[in-house]
C-alpha cells in the first residue's frame, strides 16, 4: 500500500507553523546545505531528476520549466509562487500556507538560489485571511532571523520575498494574468509566445510554480531527486495533497501518495458518502477537469496514468464528490454561472461563450429548454476548446462537455418534462 507522506509529516498544533517549531523539525537545514555545498545547476539537476510535475492543474514538469531559464544571462529573473488557489473545490495550498509557511519560504529560497532570483513573489488569493497572516508572519520571522534579505544565513546569497494579495479574480490564478496583476495592470492573461520563462514579470524570465509544487523542493533536495522519484507511480512521482469536498463524511485536505487506491481513499479515509448514498459522480481535480461517474472511478488509483486513461486528470487536486440524487443540470448551472462570472472578457470565445452557456443552462433549469440546447452547449464548448488566450475557455468546455457526456439523459429529461428529475433538495442526513 503506497502511503508515504512528504508534506504532512508533523502533527498540526496551534504553534506548528512558527519558525521555532519548523526549525525543531529540521527546517532550514536544507537551505543551509544548499547555500554551502551546492551550485545552482546542481539544485536544478536534482529537481529535474525528481520528475516532479506541477500541482496547480496543468501538470507540467517543474524541471523542464526551470530549464528554459538561462543562468548568467545578464538579466534579472523572477520567481513567483502561485497561491491564488481559485479553482473551485481546491483548498490544499491553504494547508501549506497555514501550517507550513516556512516550508514554502525555504523551498522558494532554494528555488531562487537555483534560478538566480533576487526578488521572489507570492501571489496569494485575496480571500485567504488566515493563510495570509500566517505567511506574512513567517516572512517577518525569516527576515528577522537573517533567512531573507541580504546575506542569507551568512552566505552571499540575497533574496527578497514579496507577498502580493490578489483581489479575488479566478483568472488571476493563470500564470500570465497573475504576473500582469503583480505589475499592477488589469489581470488579463497574455498571449504565448513568448513563454513566461522567456518574458514574464516586467518582461523578464519568470518561473511561476504552484505552492505545493514549490514546497516539495525541500524534500527533493534533502533526500535527492532520485529518492523523490521512487515515491508514487512511474509517471506520477511524489505525493499529492487532495482537498476533498462535497458529499463525503470527512471532507478536508489529505496527503496521498500517487498510486493510492481511490476507493480506499474515499470510503476509508474520507468516511464514505454522506448518508450512505451511492456515489453518482466525482470531479477529480477541480471543476475544470472532466467529471467521472462513481463506477468509472472505483477501480482507479490516484495517479495521472489512471485518470488520464479514464479521460480526466488529477488537475489541481480539488476533488468533489457528488452523491446520488444530485441534479446534474443544476450542478452544471452552478459551474457555468461561475465561469460566466469569472471570464475576464479579453478574448471573444470565452467572453461571449460563457454568457451564452450560462443563459442556456439557466433556461433549461427554468423549464424553458429547447431540444437543440444540448447540441448548442456542446458546440459552444467546442468553440472554446484550445482557442482562447488562457486555459479558462477550455476548462469551461471540459466541465460542460464532461457532464453532458455522462449525464445527457438528465438534461433531456429536464428539457422534455420542463423540470428536473430530482426534487431539488438533497436530503443527506449527516451520519455521525
Amino acid at each position, binding site marked *: 500500500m503506497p502511503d508515504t507522506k512528504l508534506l504532512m509529516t508533523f502533527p498540526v498544533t496551534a504553534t506548528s507553523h512558527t519558525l521555532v517549531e519548523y526549525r525543531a523539525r529540521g527546517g532550514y537545514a536544507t537551505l543551509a546545505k544548499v547555500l554551502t555545498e551546492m551550485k545552482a545547476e546542481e539544485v536544478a539537476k536534482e529537481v529535474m531528476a525528481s520528475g516532479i510535475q506541477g500541482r496547480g492543474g496543468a501538470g507540467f514538469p517543474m524541471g523542464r520549466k526551470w530549464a528554459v531559464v538561462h543562468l548568467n544571462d545578464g538579466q534579472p529573473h523572477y520567481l513567483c509562487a502561485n497561491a491564488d488557489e481559485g479553482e473551485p473545490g481546491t483548498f490544499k495550498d491553504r494547508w501549506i500556507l497555514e501550517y507550513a509557511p516556512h516550508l514554502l519560504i525555504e523551498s522558494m529560497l532554494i528555488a531562487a538560489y537555483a534560478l538566480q532570483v533576487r526578488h521572489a513573489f507570492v501571489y496569494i488569493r485575496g480571500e485567504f485571511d488566515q493563510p495570509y497572516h500566517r505567511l506574512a508572519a513567517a516572512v517577518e520571522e525569516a527576515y528577522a532571523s537573517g533567512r531573507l534579505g541580504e546575506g542569507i544565513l551568512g552566505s552571499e546569497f540575497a533574496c527578497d520575498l514579496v507577498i502580493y494579495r490578489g483581489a479575488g479574480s479566478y483568472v488571476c490564478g493563470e500564470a500570465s494574468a497573475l504576473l500582469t496583476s503583480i505589475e499592477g495592470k488589469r489581470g488579463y492573461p497574455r*498571449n504565448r509566445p513568448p513563454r513566461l520563462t522567456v518574458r514574464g514579470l516586467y518582461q523578464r524570465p519568470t518561473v511561476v510554480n504552484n505552492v505545493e509544487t514549490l514546497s516539495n523542493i525541500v524534500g527533493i533536495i534533502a533526500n535527492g531527486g532520485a529518492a523523490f522519484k521512487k515515491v508514487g507511480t512511474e509517471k506520477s512521482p511524489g505525493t499529492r495533497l487532495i482537498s476533498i469536498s462535497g458529499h463525503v463524511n470527512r471532507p478536508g485536505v489529505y496527503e496521498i501518495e500517487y498510486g493510492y487506491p481511490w476507493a480506499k481513499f474515499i470510503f476509508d479515509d474520507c468516511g464514505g458518502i454522506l448518508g450512505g448514498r451511492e456515489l453518482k459522480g466525482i470531479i477529480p481535480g477541480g471543476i475544470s477537469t472532466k467529471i467521472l461517474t462513481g463506477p468509472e472511478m472505483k477501480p482507479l488509483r490516484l495517479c495521472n496514468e489512471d485518470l488520464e486513461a479514464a479521460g480526466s486528470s488529477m488537475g489541481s487536486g480539488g476533488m468533489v464528490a457528488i452523491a446520488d440524487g444530485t441534479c446534474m443540470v443544476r450542478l452544471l448551472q452552478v459551474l457555468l454561472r461561475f465561469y460566466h462570472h469569472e471570464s475576464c*472578457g479579453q478574448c471573444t470565445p470565452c467572453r461571449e461563450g460563457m454568457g451564452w452557456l450560462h443563459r442556456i443552462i439557466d433556461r433549461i433549469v427554468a423549464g424553458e429548454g429547447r431540444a437543440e440546447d444540448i447540441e448548442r452547449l456542446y458546440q459552444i464548448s467546442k468553440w472554446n476548446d484550445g482557442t482562447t488566450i488562457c486555459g479558462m475557455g477550455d476548462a469551461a468546455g471540459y466541465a460542460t462537455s464532461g457532464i453532458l457526456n455522462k449525464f445527457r439523459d438528465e438534461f433531456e429529461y429536464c428539457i422534455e418534462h420542463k423540470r428536473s428529475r430530482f426534487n431539488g433538495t438533497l436530503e443527506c442526513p449527516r451520519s455521525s
Partner: protein
Amino acid sequence: MPEIFINGKSVQAERDQSVLQAALANGFYIPYFCWHPKLSVAGNCRICCVQVEGRSWVEISCNMPVTEGLRVLTDSDVVKAYRKSIMQLVTLNHPVDCGICDKAGECTLQDYHYKYNGEPSMSRDPKVHATKFHPLSERIVLDNERCIVCSRCVRFTREISKSNALGITQRGDASLVRAAEDGALDADPYSDNIVDLCPVGALLSRSFLYKSRVWYLKPTPSVCPGCARGCAVHIWHRKPEWKLNALDAGQNTRIERVTPLDNPQVNGPWICNKGRDLAQIFERPRAVQAMLKGKPVELDAAIGAARRLIDGAKHPVAMVSSWGSNEELDAFKRALGGQFASYVKRDWAPQPGERLDDDFLIRADKNPNSAAARALFPRQDDGAAALDADIDLILVWGEGFDFARLPARARVIFLNAYLQPENGHADVFIPISIQTERHGHYTNFEGVVSAFEPCFARKPTVADSETLFAEIAATAVART
C-alpha cells in the same frame, strides 16, 4: 528572410513579421478585428486564426512568429468553421442595428459577416443589453452594445496618443470601454482617431452622427492646413451622382467629415482633432463679391483697379499668404515678385486653448505652407512691428493681417476668401478660392510635398489666385 508556405505557396517573409503580416504583405487575406499595423498585438478577437499544416487545431496568426519552413493554411475547412464560430460569437450580443449605424457600409464586422458567416444567429436567447450613447468625451459617443471589446481604442490611447485616457471596466460579456477618469479623453487632442480605429460602429463621432450614409460620400485626397505638419487627409463630401436637388442643397457642398489618409512620410494613419474640424475653417461665411471701397463690382473691374494701383505705386509691399499653395506662391513670385517688396505673413496664430505643439504631430506653426513661402520670400512679417511710413500700396493676400498697422496714406489691395469687415474698407477687394476648390501642393516643415484635390466647384465670381496674379501682371506688363 525565412521562407514560409501559405496555402502551399512559397512566401518570403521578414524575420520579425508575424504570419498575419507576411500573409497580408503577400496578397493572402486573413481577417482581423483587433490587430492593427501600428498597435501592439492583443490577440483577443481570434478571427485571424490559421491552421498549421499537420495540426488539427487553429492558432491566431497575429501572434505567430514566422519560422523557416512554416506551413500554414488560411482557408482550410477547420479555419473556415472556426471563423464562422467567431462570427457567431462576436455577433451574439451585437445589436445588428446596421440600419441606423453610422459605420454601416465601411464596417469590418458587416463585411466579415457576409464573407465568413452569412448565417443568422444560432442563439434564441435575448441579447445582453448595455449602455447606448455613453459620452466618452465631448466629441465621441460610445455604443457599448455594438462594441466587440477589441481594445484597439484602449491601445491607441496608451501607445500612440499616450494619454492613457481609456480602459476597460467590468469583465466577461459585461466589459465596458470607459474613460480612465472624467474628461480624460477630452484632454486627448488625437481622440477622434479611435473612431476610425473602431472596427464596428461602437465609437461614433458626434459631429458626423447621423449626418449621412457613407455610401453617398466620396473621399477627396487633401492636406490638412491646420499646422506645418501638413497631414494627408481625406475630405468626405457628397458624391456628385447623389447630388440633392430638393431638401437641403447645401449638403452638396458640405464637408461631412475628415479622416486621415495614410502617408507614412508625414502622419501615418493618424491626424489630430483639429484636422477633423476642417469644416470649421472652410465653412465660415465666404466672400464672393469683388468690391472697390465696399462698392460691389465685377471681378474684371476689380482686377483692373488693382493693376492701376500697382502701376502707380512707388513703394508697394506685399503680404504673402502662408496658406497659398506652392503653385500660387510660384505664380505670385513670377508675376508680381519683382514689383513688390514681399513678406511672408503668418495667416493663423494659435487659438486660445489650442495645443501649441507636441512630439507627435502637432506643430507650433499653424500655417500649412510656411516652408515653401519662406523659400521663395526670405523676408518674414512678424505680425506686429510698424510698417514703413513711405509705403504707398500694400497687397494683403489672405487672413491674419492687422490693418491697424497700415501707414495712413497706403492704399490696400485685399485678397481674401472669407467675409470680414476689412473687406469693405480695402481700396480693391478680390474674393479668392479656398483649398477645397482647387488643386495644389503644400510643402510641410520637413520639406515633404503633398497634393490636394478640389472637392467642390469654385463660384464664377471668385478668383483663383494661381491665375489671378498672372492676370494682374499680364495687363500691367502690357501697359508698360
